[in-house]
């Protein structure tokens, strides 16, 4: 937190901050996600740039108060451009001992720690595996601790209501939220509006939560608990309309938008799997957009149905995570052979096998590249942030329908459930990618090709005179007849590779942020974008000269990648895997990439990348 010199406008001291990270942590039942969402909405309304990340417990609901039951929500809000939910929280709100135990290690030294002391009975401590009370031993020495009896205070604030004591207790998250609003000088009005809208039919709940919120605010005002409060001014965001968006929502909206722009119906075939299921859930609500969602019996059926829909002239899409992508491999090979458009989206999670299903990872890149038998190349794109999922999905659809081929999109658990403000695009500005189905029987051949993109024609069954057969056996070029001919096979294998390679002719060159050549380039893909961006920005401020490049297109890569690599003395590739992009770059460009890997189920910290850069440049922090 950087201090500015503005004079305090309120009785107690008010300081300005550029960037603040708050984490709300409690039991799954404590409403931490809603609390975080409300703080986020308010920060957005105040014009902050922001970035959020929920941390759900593993898939099964653990018993209340236990360590596996802890749920947290982190928000980074700022008066500057930010791209990550922040490395270490400045403030941690801990609703119970389990939440404290799980989250404390992340809190900044000297950070603010608000603890709900009402939840520190012996039984609570035991459930969290505390052998002594951390409020009473040395556990919290390094932090500024604010013990608050949240339960009691909420009860007090709500004493006029007629709610059951259980319901009253459930409002304590809004009491805590009220305190945060006071601490960061946030207005409460839009939260009130939201409450009254949400509880339209249960006004007593709206009222109770309003009271709790006001209570928390008033408590800080009255008690002088905090000596200082903070302001985080509006960021200098590009003008326009914004919306706070999660990655999976942006993905869903991107698909619907692209289908509309392609003028074809969208068909999603999917089988639920963490962390991809929400794309299915969201698309299932878009029936009035003409979106079909089909929950298949397994991942193979899901992609099979999507391919069938594509054969019928729809945009076939299948969403999944790593284990599901593995299962779809064989069917994707069929889409390669039949040259049908298809978009397969892999929201990566920790592996191998069932692995760490609720944690993030970006280790499916090589599976996406090579995880099909024989030579079955497909284009691969990766989203770099929650809002970017929209554009990545759109671009994937464009390639699929314009090149007639399956495309893989990689996202991951981190951006899927993270959120950031999205500057909403102008709908007219989005490219027209409308599909022209072949209807003319004259000179028609199923594998005749568009000379530029090598795409074969897309024909909808039901078109008179164009009846033809496709399938998984090798095809004679142009005619599409089965062919066992040696030369034809060699030709087709190379043609399918060439089709993918030609995409590079159309996509933008990769851009370098910072000096265009020099000592060090930090090159990334996917969700590491925010961490790298923040690290590079902070290093810049420190005067360390380093450049950044980030790839959306992983296959094929932009035409200039090799050339850029050679302009830098060192190239650092941070990845949440064991060096998968590094392997591809080394093989293609014979450059001695420095691979920086971390496979911990969570994103890089800005500081980790900064340290690595300093180390490589021989700079002392």
């Amino acid at each position, binding site marked *: 937190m950087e201090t500015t010199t503005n004079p305090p406008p309120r009785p107690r001291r008010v300081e300005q901050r550029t960037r603040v990270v708050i984490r709300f942590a409690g039991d799954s039942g404590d409403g931490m996600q809603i609390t975080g969402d409300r703080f986020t909405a308010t920060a957005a309304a105040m014009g902050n740039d922001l970035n959020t990340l929920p941390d759900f417990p593993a898939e099964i609901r653990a018993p209340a108060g236990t360590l596996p039951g802890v749920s947290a929500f982190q928000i980074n809000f700022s008066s500057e451009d930010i791209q990550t939910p922040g490395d270490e929280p400045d403030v941690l709100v801990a609703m119970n001992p389990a939440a404290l135990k799980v989250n404390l290690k992340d809190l900044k030294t000297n950070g603010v720690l608000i603890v709900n002391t009402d939840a520190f009975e012996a039984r609570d401590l035991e459930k969290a595996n505390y052998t002594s009370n951390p409020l009473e031993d040395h556990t919290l020495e390094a932090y500024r601790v604010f013990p608050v009896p949240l339960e009691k205070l909420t009860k007090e604030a709500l004493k006029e209501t007629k709610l059951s004591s259980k319901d009253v207790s459930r409002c304590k998250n809004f009491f805590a939220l009220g305190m945060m609003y006071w601490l960061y000088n946030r207005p409460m009005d839009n939260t009130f509006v939201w409450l009254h809208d949400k509880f339209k039919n249960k006004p007593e709940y709206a009222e109770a939560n309003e009271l709790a919120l006001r209570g928390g605010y008033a408590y800080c005002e009255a008690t002088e608990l905090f000596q200082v409060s903070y302001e985080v001014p509006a960021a200098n965001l590009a003008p326009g309309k914004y919306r706070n968006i999660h990655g999976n929502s942006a993905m869903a909206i991107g698909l619907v938008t692209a289908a509309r722009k392609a003028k074809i119906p969208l068909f999603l075939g999917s089988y639920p799997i963490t962390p991809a299921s929400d794309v299915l859930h969201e698309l299932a609500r878009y029936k009035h957009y003409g979106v079909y969602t089909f929950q298949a019996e397994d991942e193979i059926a899901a992609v099979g149905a999507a391919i069938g829909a594509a054969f019928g002239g*729809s945009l076939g899409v299948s969403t999944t995570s790593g284990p599901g992508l593995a299962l779809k491999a064989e069917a994707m090979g069929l889409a390669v052979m039949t040259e049908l458009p298809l978009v397969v989206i892999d929201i990566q999670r920790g592996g191998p096998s069932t692995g760490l299903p609720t944690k993030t990872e970006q280790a499916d890149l090589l599976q996406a590249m090579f995880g099909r038998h024989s030579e079955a190349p497909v284009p691969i794109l990766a989203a770099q942030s929650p809002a970017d999922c929209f554009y990545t999905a759109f671009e994937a659809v464009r390639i699929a329908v314009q090149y007639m081929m399956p495309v893989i999109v990689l996202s991951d658990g981190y951006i899927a459930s993270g959120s950031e403000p999205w500057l909403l695009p102008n709908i007219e500005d989005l490219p027209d990618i409308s599909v022209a189905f072949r209807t003319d029987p004259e000179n028609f051949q199923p594998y005749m090709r568009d000379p530029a993109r090598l795409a074969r024609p897309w024909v909808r069954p039901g078109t008179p005179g164009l009846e033809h057969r496709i399938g998984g056996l090798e095809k004679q070029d142009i005619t599409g007849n089965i062919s066992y001919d040696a030369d034809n096979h060699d030709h087709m294998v190379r043609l399918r590779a060439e089709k993918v390679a030609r995409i590079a002719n159309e996509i933008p060159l990769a851009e370098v942020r910072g000096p265009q050549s020099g000592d060090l380039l930090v090159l990334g893909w996917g969700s590491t974008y925010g961490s790298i961006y923040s690290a590079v920005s902070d290093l810049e401020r420190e005067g360390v000269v380093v450049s950044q490049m980030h790839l959306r297109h992983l296959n094929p890569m932009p035409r200039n990648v090799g050339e850029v690599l050679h302009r830098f003395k060192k190239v650092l590739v941070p990845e949440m895997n064991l060096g998968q992009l590094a392997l591809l770059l080394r093989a293609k460009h014979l450059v001695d990439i420095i691979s920086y890997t971390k496979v911990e189920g969570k994103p890089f910290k800005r500081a980790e990348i900064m340290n690595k850069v300093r180390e490589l440049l021989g700079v002392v922090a």
Partner: protein
Amino acid sequence: MSNGNGHPPLAGGEPGITALTKKDFESNQEVRWCPGCGDYAILRAVQALFPTLGIPRENFVIVSGIGCSSRFPYYMNVYGFHSIHGRAPTFATGLKVTRPELSVWVVTGDGDSLSIGGNHLIHAMRRNVDIKVLMFNNRIYGLTKGQYSPTSERGKVTKSTPYGSVERPFLPLSVALGAEATFVARSVDIYADHLKEVLAAASRHRGAAFVEIYQNCNIFNDGAFEFMTPKPLRDDNQIGLEHGKPLIYGKNHDKGIRLRGVDPEVVDLNAPGARREDLLVHDAHAESPSLAFVLSRLAPPVFPTPIGIFRDVEAPTLDDGMNAQLKDAVAKKGQGSLESLIHAGDTWTVS
């Protein structure tokens, strides 16, 4: 948008509905089954049937998996998709749901549909998606040169079971009925007319249809159905099911089937005391699949093998359901606009 699901209307050549003939359905591909294979007869029957169904040629789609049988689409001059092993119902489902106006047929083998593809098959039945599944049951893996299949009898000696198989076979119709199939039937490759009748009924049925077709693989499992198909054996070893008719068979129509509890038994109608009124009367439209299930168990040596339509009932289809939801949603909320999609939720403006 022609059919309410966002598809543009079709242009192109003339619709081919009028005066189609068998010839119109023969493709220009050389047919490549072993000489003598039962698949030829089925092909001829289907080529003869399709022009009579009143469906424009371009609206037929045949989807298949992998196997000798699954080569079928290549020989039909309609839209065809020779997909991958066992998965044909999945492609057909995605296609039918998004293109309900098409007539979608699946051609598959006993290995394709009941071994690797068993799950997709039962789910297609359960969902009652309006596709017609023709399962060529030769009780062997033909294409891979003769391993036993899930319909091969226990003890079967094949390449992969030189000591005889130790597995019990599925009865494909029981499997389909256990999976809530709404149309279930059986015919035989060489019974051209019967086969066409059954397939025509399958085509008329709205919903998933499962048709088991006994098919002779003269190379790897020759004579698998000779217990019944040779003319002299037919009358005594097979029984034709007809809705509303009692179960009578035999050269002299003097054998019948009646129930004892839920278990069928053969009645010699010439025997003293035997009464036609006691015979089981076939009800293909019974709401419950129980009768069809009981019939699906009939097999030699004690019983004749039933052929014909075991079950044919109405139930909501997946494709109707999904398309109705889309239509309803549009009716209720109006056609969604990109504006309302993108600019939704809590938005704020920075100026």
